[in-house]
């Protein structure tokens, strides 16, 4: 176990030394993944569906805040959808503007969750993102996670119905609007997953803030249980069935990811917890202090006393 802690300390010191390069690199990678996912799922506009565009946009995002990445991703989605259906583009644009004004008007600074959530869904580990958001973010992190979930289901909808949506003479304009809005907003699988993710974030956040031992580990467990419960409720109430095999595998992967995050961020030693009590003019303080686990990396120095020289007697003898 000590070796793992030493590895963590090494990682930390490495990040501390090269954070100027690591942070833009991570942003670049995240941006590239997001744009690549959008192009892969929706690549209807050939001008945008190009790896060069993905790289250039990711490069731009690497030096700008995550909000810009979310904005560029939204523009890319609208560009692709506009090649399929202008009605759907208008509806999506309105929904995006509403989210942008009503939630991002508060400048919450968690746009990365909006970008990360569809990526996690794409790689079949959707249950990890509510747990990670609950561990790292706040109660309001549920909003970008839910929006990201909705975005993923919109991708699926567009992908599955591209032929129908692009058909010119399928119906009248008003009927098409009504049909699209109903299909988007009344998608029960989407509603169930949004409720699952939202409940997961709230449960994990509330439990990890409790002043009990192993609160983070309990929060991860509770997040898994709550999400499973919500999925079973969705199955029972809305008849939205989720295949058991992938669900279990996804849950296990989510727990492993969350455990890795927990280990990297919140390694504390509860056995050395101290309870302090003191007072000042205004208050009595009852303090619980839990020490962090910190291990210094062994600084091994090898000092050579007998350095071999070229042409020493022994070496010369060997050469002979």
């Amino acid at each position, binding site marked *: 176990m000590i070796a793992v802690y030493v590895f963590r300390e090494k990682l930390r010191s490495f990040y501390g030394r090269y954070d100027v390069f690591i942070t833009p690199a991570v942003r670049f990678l995240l941006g590239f993944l997001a744009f690549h996912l959008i192009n892969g799922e929706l690549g209807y506009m050939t001008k945008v569906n190009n790896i060069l565009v993905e790289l250039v946009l990711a490069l731009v995002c690497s030096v700008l805040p995550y909000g810009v990445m979310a904005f560029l991703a939204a523009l890319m989605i609208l560009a692709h959808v506009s090649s399929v259906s202008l009605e759907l583009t208008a509806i999506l644009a309105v929904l995006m503007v509403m989210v942008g004004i*009503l939630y991002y008007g508060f400048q919450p600074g968690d746009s990365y969750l909006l970008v990360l959530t569809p990526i996690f869904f794409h790689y079949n580990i959707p249950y990890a993102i509510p747990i990670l958001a609950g561990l790292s973010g706040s109660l309001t992190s549920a909003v970008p996670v839910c929006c990201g979930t909705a975005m993923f289901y919109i991708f699926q909808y567009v992908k599955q119905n591209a032929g129908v949506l692009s058909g010119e003479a399928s119906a009248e304009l008003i009927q098409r609007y009504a049909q699209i809005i109903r299909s988007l907003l009344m998608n029960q699988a989407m509603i169930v997953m949004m409720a699952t993710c939202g409940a997961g974030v709230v449960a994990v956040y509330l439990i990890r803030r409790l002043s009990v031992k192993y609160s983070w580990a309990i929060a991860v467990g509770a997040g898994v249980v709550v999400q499973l419960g919500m999925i079973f409720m969705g199955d029972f109430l809305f008849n939205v069935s989720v295949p058991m095999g992938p669900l279990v595998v996804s849950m296990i992967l989510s727990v492993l990811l969350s455990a890795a995050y927990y280990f990297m961020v919140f390694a504390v030693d509860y056995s050395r917890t101290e309870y302090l009590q003191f007072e000042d003019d205004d208050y009595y303080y009852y303090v619980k202090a839990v020490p962090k686990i910190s291990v210094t990396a062994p600084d091994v120095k090898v000092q050579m006393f007998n350095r071999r020289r070229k042409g020493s007697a022994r070496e010369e003898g060997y050469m002979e």
Partner: protein
Amino acid sequence: MLNESKIKLMTGISMIEKDKGKDLAIVHRYFKGDYIGRHMLCAFLGYTFCWCLGLLLVAACKVEEWFSLLSLKELADYFVGYAAWYAAGLLVYLVITFIVYFIRYRRASLTMRRYLERLKNLERRYEFQGKIKEPGREVRKS
């Protein structure tokens, strides 16, 4: 010779300026009521704009239903329902906005207090050092 504690103090002040500069600017520029009121006004305008956009979407779906209503009174009743939803949503949104910006201003005030305490501490140090460097002047004063 380097004064380690003074360097720590100055570094702490610089860190607050760098990380919480935005918070300091909030307290510096606005009174609490003005700050919250300004954001509530923005929230009101933003919510109303979004509600209008939402109404457009609904209108796209239900325009035929609206035209099929027989009398103006029926139409008015229909829109009273939408107005009630608007008012309820606006109330909830404004309450959330009030809570968010109230907490932000309180946090910013705490940061400002911490920042000023450190600045005062630094100032006291400089005064103390000034007195040590000019002992003759002190003697003449006394």
